[in-house]
């Protein structure tokens, strides 16, 4: 049977080659050409100018804060995301389907609306009197909002597939809930948690829309890298903006490759 299929299999036909050609062309024009322009033109003013722009005190401060706050947001997501995924898979309560659907809201809601939304509750006109606007905590809050779904949506399907018998066996042998979670559930979830966390981190590092209104963009305090780049473009310094963009771009690509490596590692360890 397999030999029959093999003989029937055509070599990559015309539409396949055409599709590949069109795809490559599209990606080149839409994605690669602009990104190449950022990399190449970042040195328009010479390597020294590139280096000065990328290592200016304000740029470094913005990058450091961006990476720091993104790490904190990612760590919080690892805990809350795993917890929420567990509750959505293993718990039963009224309105669970609604809650499950709402998890994707941060994906669907425009980021500028997300920022405005957080500002409505945690800003100067807060109905509960909590005003964190223009603080580093506000930036963290915005990042937590927009990255909420990543870990949850990554962990949920793995948790659903997980064999319950092992857990039940461990419990019947006298293991506590914590032991079962730490020894049986968690090890199975690690690849999914890390994958979701990497996506959340990548998203947080580049985030802009949800931060614009709530951060106040205070240099050396609440200014994130994307806001710094935006300000450089506004003050008609696109080449300087390109320099720090290259740093951000390299970071994004590293995360992307990390996610791919993680995916392969998870696939090998899972089954």
């Amino acid at each position, binding site marked *: 049977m397999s030999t029959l299929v093999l003989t*029937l*299999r055509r070599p*990559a036909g015309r*539409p*396949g080659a055409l*599709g*590949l050609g*069109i*795809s490559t062309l*599209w*990606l080149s024009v839409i*994605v*690669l050409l*602009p990104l190449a*322009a*950022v990399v190449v033109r970042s040195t328009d003013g010479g390597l020294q100018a590139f280096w000065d722009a990328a290592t200016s005190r304000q740029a470094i401060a913005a990058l450091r804060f961006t990476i720091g706050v993104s790490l904190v947001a990612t760590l919080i997501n690892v805990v*809350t995301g795993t*917890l*929420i995924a*567990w*509750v959505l898979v*293993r718990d039963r*309560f009224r309105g669970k389907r609604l*809650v499950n*659907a*709402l998890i*994707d*809201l941060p*994906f*669907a*809601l*425009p*980021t*500028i*609306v997300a920022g*405005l*939304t957080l500002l*409505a509750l945690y800003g100067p006109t807060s*109905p509960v009197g909590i005003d964190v606007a223009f603080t580093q905590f506000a930036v963290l809050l915005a990042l*937590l*909002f927009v990255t909420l779904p990543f870990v949850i949506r990554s962990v949920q399907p793995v948790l659903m597939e997980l064999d319950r018998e092992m*857990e039940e066996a461990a419990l019947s042998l006298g293991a506590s809930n914590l032991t*079962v979670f730490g020894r049986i559930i968690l090890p199975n979830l690690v690849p999914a948690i890390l994958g979701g966390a990497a996506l959340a981190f990548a*998203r947080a590092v*580049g985030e*802009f829309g949800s931060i*614009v*209104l709530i951060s106040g963009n205070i240099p050396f305090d609440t200014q994130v890298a*994307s*806001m710094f*780049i*935006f300000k450089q*473009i506004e003050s008609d310094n*696109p080449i300087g*903006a390109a320099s720090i*963009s290259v740093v*951000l*771009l390299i970071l*994004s690509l590293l995360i*992307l490759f990390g996610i791919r490596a993680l995916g392969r590692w998870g696939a090998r360890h899972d089954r």
Partner: protein
Amino acid sequence: MTVDRPWRIGLRTVALGYLALLLIIPIGVVFYRTFEHGLGAVYDAVTTPAAISAFWLTITVTAIAVPLNTIFGILCALALARGRFRGKAILDTIIDIPFAVSPVVVGLALILVYGRGGWLGDLPFQVIFSVPGIVLATIFISVPFVVREVTPVLKEIGDDQEQAASTLGAGDWQTFWRITLPSIRWGVAYGVVLSVARCIGEFGAVSVVSGKVAGETETLTLLVEKRFQNFDIAGAYAASALLAFIALATLLAMTLINPRRDNE
């Protein structure tokens, strides 16, 4: 349930409390603030000439970007799922770049190509601070969605039916329209819904390249920002509520498509 009842209730409370504080209550407050002065005020705020023009610009840009990326997405998914060629892993990685790159960098990249002094800065028509720039930015950020939704479906269904069809004499187009497309349609639909939501909601990249001329290059999300900066808070809330309704409709569509997609 393998977990004791008090544990379960405790974990549930923490999880739902976190979601309430971060997601549900803030959205509730925005809707309350929007409609506290009555429907009339909201209607007035979303039917000003600037708002109507922003709405139509957003729709137009989405209507250009989504179909193009859907065609690209299906072609690319076919290449990734069925093709065997060198550089497949690279192609696969490039597709994810728009997910990872900051939208501001996307906007800057377009300025460096199409702006004053850019690589293609001398085109006969204006791109930056004009509608073509907004369209290009929106296409960039919505590239991955259809590809990412369709590729796994194509891998899952395999190519047995396609091969059977071509053995029986069907042409490539016929096979695609009669066999492949019907079996991936819900995957495509899901990708399209995600793309539409992303296109309508895009802010960062568009904000860099648009120039923000009211009535000309201002999209809905830019209108929200401008109104807020101009202390027209009620107007900003009204436009936000409109966008939030679109987001909720997106969620509804996702929830409806999901089970069908799983059954494919």
